[in-house]
């Protein structure tokens, strides 16, 4: 599809031109706006200027710094003293014997005792198993092959 006729028609828009003296005035207007911008400081510059002016006017007494430090120290001590006392830890054996204590206090395991995998709980406390443990593979020999492989 040739777009040449459309190109020629659209090109006619180039005849739309601004008034003859427009570009001469444009530079003058640009310079005028630039100068106006220089005279009008930005908001951030204005804020900084006012802030520095305000700080320069405020006369801080010499003892104010020491007073502020003392207040900060007192406040820090008060905050630290208000912290709740930590609950006394309960040993693992005590927590196992009494589930109530387990829920209320953190449990600690005695560091000196060696770790044992045997469960020392009384036999009556362990519930009877309804199913044999899964790792027995239901009396079949374990195989790494997929049951779907031939």
């Amino acid at each position: 599809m040739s777009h040449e006729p459309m190109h020629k028609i659209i090109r006619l828009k180039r005849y739309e031109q601004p008034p003859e003296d427009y570009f001469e005035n444009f530079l003058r207007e640009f310079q005028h706006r630039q100068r106006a911008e220089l005279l009008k400081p930005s908001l951030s510059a204005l804020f900084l200027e006012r802030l520095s002016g305000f700080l320069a006017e405020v006369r801080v007494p010499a003892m104010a710094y020491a007073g502020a430090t003392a207040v900060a120290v007192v406040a820090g001590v008060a905050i630290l003293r208000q912290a709740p006392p930590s609950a006394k830890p309960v040993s693992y054996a005590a927590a196992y014997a009494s589930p109530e204590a387990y829920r209320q206090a953190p449990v600690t395991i005695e560091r000196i005792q060696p770790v044992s995998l045997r469960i020392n709980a009384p036999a009556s406390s362990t519930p009877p198993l309804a199913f044999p443990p899964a790792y027995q593979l239901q009396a079949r020999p374990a195989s790494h092959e997929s049951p779907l492989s031939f």
Partner: protein
Amino acid sequence: MSSEMVFLQSVFDHDLSGEHNDCFCMNQDPEISPHDDQELVARTQGGDPSAFDELVVRYSPRLYGLVYHMTSNHEDTNDLLQDVFAKAYRSICNFRGKSSFYTWLHSIAVNMTINFLKKRNRRQHPSLNDPDSNIENDPDFIAATSNGDPTKEVSAHELQKKLNGAMLKLSHDHRIVVTMFDIQGMPHAEIAKILKVSEGTVRSRLFYAHRQLQNSLHEFKKR
């Protein structure tokens, strides 16, 4: 008529069709060489505002055309163009010369114009400049408006209104390529650099834009 206007007219008098258009490069003109631009940019960066004034004089007619044909409003164009040059002046210290000043400045103008159009959205109040009286002597105008039949003649203003209506129907992406290629006569490669897209994308957008324009301006196509 100022020297810039004379130059622009000579630029527009080129044959912009087909392959010839691709060979056309504004920066190759002896009046506007990238070397001159570099010197003016360096002087501006060194703190000489008069050098930037020269850049404003040099590029305002071309950028005016770009923005005006996108907005179809003279007042909006004037304000936008002032903002474009103000932004360029503020950021000229960051210009490292990776692209030409011409491309850099046009990219700023395109981005600011598209942002403006997005904000303006449907509030379109065309404020068109009068077409130059020379349009009536243009063979393309005569061919498009009368086709040898004076009774069917269309006035320059009527044609202008229809062209603007058709342009405003285009999306911003399509309008910008039509403006740069068809009206301003920029080569595809230059448009691609300014828009930061591939040349293929520029050609594709032009194809679809022309097809849409053909539908809007079918009465002139038949002539």
